[in-house]
């Protein structure tokens, strides 16, 4: 159609002006899409580091309020421990799901002779529950005996620990020695045990060493097909009947909150990118208004020889559409490059670049760019179409 051809040629003869306007759109699309890519990659990276996702409910002593605790009285706001009676109540309440009592402490230790003291977390877990915690070993085995222990991947890597290594616990080894029987695979941030920088010893060793008969937390592994929220409710009903003595964390709900927060952050940074698109839109509007004011006489001639208003309008809409489509597609391509660079620099990894979410972000950026261009072209086009042909013909 001739109006499409005229729109193309007008862009071509004003190449510099058109290119600058398109550059604005390119920047806008890159800002929006690359921020989307960054947000998506961030979520994907965090998701990967969250192991044992969505199948845990963690019960810990309630630390708020400052009042005493019931349920056997062994857990208080000062002591902040869970009693064996608490454990038995939880175990009964959540059956057939598995309740795992966990002890933990932060302790000084030494690996090898002549090395500096290090501080790490020691968990005490009954070996029968190790398979339920899904601790995958990269070396060694679970059968660690009373003075055997498993160590986390990062801990082992940082301190050059291998199966068979010995770790002296306490400032001068006064709490004895643990022998490493297995290395736990990297788990990342976890809702149950964060083992990467920790040691997992037996509950018996822990009880004997620290003279403990209570627990720091109880982890409930929820079986497939059951809802973590229901398990949380059961525990709260059982233990927090009269007063709140335990805090119950539902991993699925926590995960949802984390994703929702990331979603909000992604939307926020994308909206900041959107500001550049608004600026680009103003530039397109300006270019289109210039295009109309330069061609008033031409519009008058067109109208006088029989061009309909809608045809004049279409000519300017085509012009805005060409600027929008070319600028947005170029921006979409560049945003993949920008997303790659940002992911590489900020997240240290580009493995989440090619995902459906990122494709959607780029698609959204391109669509938004085109829509902004068309929207900014509508008023100038309408103005051109509604010029009085007589006035337009007289225009110099």
């Amino acid at each position: 159609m001739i109006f499409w051809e005229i729109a193309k040629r007008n862009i071509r003869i004003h190449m510099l002006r058109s290119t600058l306007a398109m550059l604005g759109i390119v920047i806008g699309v890159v800002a929006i899409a690359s921020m989307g890519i960054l947000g998506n990659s961030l979520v994907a990276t965090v998701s990967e580091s969250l192991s044992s996702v969505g199948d845990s409910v963690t019960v810990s002593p309630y630390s708020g309020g400052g009042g005493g605790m019931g349920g056997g009285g062994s857990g208080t706001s000062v002591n902040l421990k869970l009693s064996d009676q608490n454990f038995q109540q939880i175990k009964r309440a959540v059956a057939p799901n598995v309740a795992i009592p966990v002890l933990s402490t932060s302790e000084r230790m030494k690996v090898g002779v002549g090395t500096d003291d290090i501080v790490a977390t020691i968990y005490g877990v009954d070996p029968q529950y190790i398979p339920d915690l899904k601790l995958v070993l990269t070396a060694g085995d679970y059968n660690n005996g009373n003075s055997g222990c498993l160590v986390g991947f990062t801990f082992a890597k940082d301190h050059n620990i291998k199966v068979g290594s010995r770790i002296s616990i306490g400032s001068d080894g006064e709490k004895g020695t643990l022998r490493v029987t297995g290395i736990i695979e990297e788990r990342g941030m976890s809702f149950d045990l964060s083992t990467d920088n920790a040691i997992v010893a037996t509950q018996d060793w822990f009880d004997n060493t620290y003279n403990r008969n209570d627990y720091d937390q109880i982890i409930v592994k929820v079986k497939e097909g059951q809802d973590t929220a229901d398990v949380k409710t059961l525990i709260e009903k059982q233990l927090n009947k009269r007063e709140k003595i335990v805090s119950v964390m539902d991993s699925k709900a926590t995960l949802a909150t984390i994703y929702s927060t990331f979603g909000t952050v992604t939307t926020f940074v994308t909206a900041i990118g959107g500001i550049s698109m608004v600026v680009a839109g103003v530039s397109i509007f300006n270019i289109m208004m210039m295009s109309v004011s330069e061609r008033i006489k031409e519009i008058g001639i067109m109208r006088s020889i029989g061009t309909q208003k809608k045809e004049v309008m279409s000519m300017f809409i085509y012009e805005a559409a060409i600027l929008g489509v070319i600028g947005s597609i170029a921006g979409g391509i560049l945003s993949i490059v920008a997303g790659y660079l940002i992911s590489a620099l900020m997240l240290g990894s580009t493995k989440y670049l090619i995902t459906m979410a990122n494709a959607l972000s780029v698609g959204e950026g391109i669509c938004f760019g085109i829509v902004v261009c068309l929207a900014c072209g509508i008023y100038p086009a309408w103005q051109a179409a509604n010029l009085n042909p007589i006035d337009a013909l007289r225009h110099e």
Partner: protein
Amino acid sequence: MNEQPVMVFKDVVKVYPLPSGDVTALDEISFQVERGEFISVMGPSGSGKSTLLNLMGCLDTPTSGDIYISGTRTGDMSDKDLTYLRRDRIGFIFQYFNLFPLLNIIENVTFPMMLKSQKSVDPEKGKEVLRSVQLDDSLFTHTPTEISGGQQQRVSIARALINDPDILLCDEPTGNLDSKTGAGIMDLMSELNRKGTTIIMVTHDSHIAEYSRRTIRIADGRIVQ
């Protein structure tokens, strides 16, 4: 053969309301144009020539009175229908040629055809019309800025003729040309008129008006002769 007048003005009044008071540009103008006529409209500046031309070209509507183009009363027509009327029944020739600088000669000439057919058109008819206004084939793919004023006016005439209009409306067609080129253009228009094209030409050049067979003189918004 259709013996209906191609244009009839009946008691046409055009008043421009201005803050300083209404200005009557045309005052009860009545005339008719028969098919095949060559009429020049003459008058001093401010006499109402341009207003008359705008009304004849359906670019404006009268305050009162009736205008008929090929039997169709234009007063009640919508903007859309008036636009179709301009496209199909009227050919415009302007003093400053008013070709589209972004289009080449063939595209300029076939532009009204494309408006009518709503699709791309066979350029052969455009070439035929361009040849009929004595434009050389070698110029067909040039842009308007690459050809002379006289050639541009020939292209403008070809564009006006492309949809076989009932009337050619010319606004000072030689006003921007030297006398020799202007004479060439007027010879061409006389030739077109001899072949049956109805022409109404607004001019204030009496030599140019001599090419026409009838002259309508207006002064102060009224026909004086």
